[in-house]
C-alpha cells in the first residue's frame, strides 16, 4: 500500500512536472515581432497586475495605514513575487533598519512624498510605463512622478553620479533585453512595507517577450551592505491594449504639498 502510494505519488509528480514544463516550452518558443534593426520589439505601454508595491512577499489582506480611508487603503492580498522563497535575505545587521522603515512607513516611504521610485520599484508601481525603443537608446518613461530612464544600448558607460533611477546599460540576449543598473543613491525603497537597499545596490533586469501582449520581468537584486546574497523577483508585465492608450501626467508634487508644508502655511488650508 505504501509502495502503491509512492508510485502514484511519483507519477503525480511527473505529471505535474510535465504540466509545469509546458508553459516554459511555450515561452521559449515565442518569437517577438522585430524592429527594423532586427531586435525584438518591446515598444508599448506596460503595467503589472500584482500587489508587489505593497509587499514583495506573499501576503494576506491587511488593515491599511489611514483609518479615514477605510477599505480604500486596505492592503490587497498577493501571492508574492520573490523567486524560490518568501523571505528577503537581509543581513542580520540590516534588519533593524527594515523594522524602523516599517514602523515609520506612513512618514518615510518615498512614494508618500512623491519621490522618484528607483529601480526595480518603478516597474511594479500601480501605474503604467512606456518603452520607446531605438537602436542605441531605449527610453523608459513612467507615469508615476514622471520618472524616466535612458537605457544606453551602445558601449557600456560608467555611472557619473549616484541617482534615484540609477545608471542603465542594456544589451540583448536573444529576445531578452538585459539591463544592468548601478549608480543608485540609498534613498529609494523596494515596497510600501519598508524593504530597502543601500548605495551598493546592483540590479540586473531581464525583459523577455512571452506573447504579443505579455512580457516576463525579472530583477536580480544584489547589495552586499544589506543582503547576504543576490535574490530575484519575477512577474509578468501586461500590455495596455486599449485604443489610443497613452501615459497621462501624474505630477504628484501638488498632491503632497499639504502633507509636507501644511504646518508652514500662513493660514491652515480651508479644506485639508
Amino acid at each position, binding site marked *: 500500500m505504501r509502495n502503491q502510494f509512492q508510485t502514484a505519488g511519483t507519477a503525480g509528480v511527473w505529471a505535474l512536472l510535465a504540466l509545469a514544463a509546458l508553459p516554459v516550452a511555450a515561452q521559449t518558443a515565442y518569437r517577438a515581432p522585430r*524592429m*527594423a*534593426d532586427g531586435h525584438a*520589439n518591446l*515598444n508599448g505601454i506596460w503595467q503589472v497586475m500584482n500587489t508587489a508595491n505593497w509587499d514583495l512577499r506573499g501576503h494576506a489582506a491587511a488593515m491599511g495605514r489611514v483609518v479615514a480611508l477605510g477599505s480604500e487603503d486596505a492592503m490587497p492580498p498577493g501571492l508574492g513575487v520573490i523567486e524560490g522563497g518568501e523571505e528577503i535575505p537581509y543581513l542580520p545587521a540590516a534588519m533593524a533598519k527594515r523594522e524602523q522603515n516599517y514602523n515609520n512607513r506612513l512618514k518615510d516611504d*518615498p512614494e508618500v*512624498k*512623491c*519621490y*522618484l521610485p528607483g529601480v526595480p520599484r518603478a516597474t511594479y508601481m500601480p501605474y503604467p510605463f*512606456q*518603452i*520607446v*525603443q*531605438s*537602436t*542605441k*537608446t*531605449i*527610453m523608459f*518613461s513612467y507615469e508615476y*512622478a*514622471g*520618472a*524616466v530612464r*535612458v537605457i544606453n544600448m551602445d558601449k557600456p558607460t560608467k555611472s*557619473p*553620479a549616484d*541617482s*534615484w*533611477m540609477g545608471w542603465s546599460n542594456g544589451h540583448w540576449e536573444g529576445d531578452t533585453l538585459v539591463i544592468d543598473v548601478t549608480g543608485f543613491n540609498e*534613498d529609494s525603497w523596494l515596497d510600501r512595507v519598508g524593504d530597502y537597499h543601500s548605495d551598493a545596490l546592483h540590479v540586473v533586469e531581464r525583459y523577455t517577450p512571452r506573447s504579443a501582449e505579455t512580457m516576463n520581468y525579472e530583477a536580480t537584486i544584489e547589495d552586499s551592505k544589506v543582503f547576504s546574497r543576490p535574490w530575484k523577483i519575477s512577474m509578468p508585465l501586461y500590455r495596455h491594449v486599449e485604443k*489610443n492608450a*497613452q*501615459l*497621462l*501626467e501624474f*505630477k504628484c*508634487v*501638488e498632491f503632497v*504639498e499639504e502633507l*509636507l*508644508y501644511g504646518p*508652514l*502655511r*500662513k*493660514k491652515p*488650508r480651508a479644506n485639508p
Partner: protein
Amino acid sequence: MHYRFRALLPALCSVAWLGTTGAFAQAPANVAKTTAAAKVTENKAWTPPRTADGKPDLQGVWSNATNVPLERPAEGRGGRARGPAQPGTAADVHYDLSQYGLDRAHSKVAEDDRTSLVTTPDGRIPPRLPEAQQRAAARAAFTREHQWDGPETRPLSERCILWPSEGPPMLSPGYNSNVQIVQGPGYVVIEQEMIHDARIIPTDGRPHLAANVRQWMGDSTGHWEGDTLVVDTTNFTDKTAFQGSTDTLHVVERFTRVANDTLQYEFTVEDPHTWAQPWSAKTFWTKTDDHIYEYACQEGNHGMANNLSGARAVERQAEEAARKQSK
C-alpha cells in the same frame, strides 16, 4: 538640482578667475563658429540621416542654450551687440550677462547673431489683449499680496512641478539646457533635463485627449511634414501661463534637423484670450556629447520648507515688535 549645482561650483570659480584675466574678450570657444542660420541656407542639399524605419533622425542629446533673447531688447538699453546688427535694430544692444555665467560658458551654444528669437518684424511679442492685461495685473497683484502664504503661491519651479522653460513651447532654462530625443515606431520622446519630464509624442494620427482632460504640459500629437516633425499641443490647464496665456493656448512646434549638429526649433502660439494674432519664434539646438543627468528636484527641495518657515519667522518677529511697541 542641488547635486548638479554643487558639482559645478569648482568650475564656476575657475570661470570667475578667467573672467578677471579678460579671457572672454572674444566669443567663448564653446560657441559654434558658423551661424546656425547660415547652415540652413548653405545646406539646402543636405538631407538628415534616417532612423531604421525611414524617418528623419532627430535623436541624440541637444543643447538649447542660446545667447539670443526671446524678444528684441527695446531701443537704447546700453551694452554692445555681439554680432552684426540687423536692419532696423539697435546697434547697441545689451544681451545677457549670464552668457558668461555658469551654464552658457560650459554648454555648447549655437552661434546665432539674430537679435530676438521671436520672428515678428519688430522682434517683439504682439501686445496682449485688454482682457489678458487685466488678468496679468490681477495675477501679479494677488502674487504680491500672497506670495509667502503657502506652496501654491510660490513659483512652479520652486515647487518642483514645472520649469517655466519646459513649455511647450520649450525654451532654454538658463542652465542644464539639455534635451534628449529618442524615436521609436510611431513615437518621438523628448526628455528635458529640467525637470526630468519626458514628452511622449505619438505620430500615429490619433486625436487629442477629451477636452475635460487637462495637463500641465498639455497633450501633444505629432506628424511628419517632409523632414520636419510637427507637434500640435492643446489641453493645457489654467494653472500655467506662457507669456500670459490661458488654458486655450494652442502651440505648434516644428523640429527640423538642418545639419548634423544643428536642429532648428520653431514654434507658433495662439490664444484667443491673450493675443489678437498668433506669433512665432525660432531657435537652434546644438548637438552635444554630454549626458542628461537626473534632475531630482522634489527629492531635494529644502527651499520650499525654508522659505515658508522663514516667512512665518518674519511674521512672528513683526508681531513681537508690534507688541513691544504697544507696551
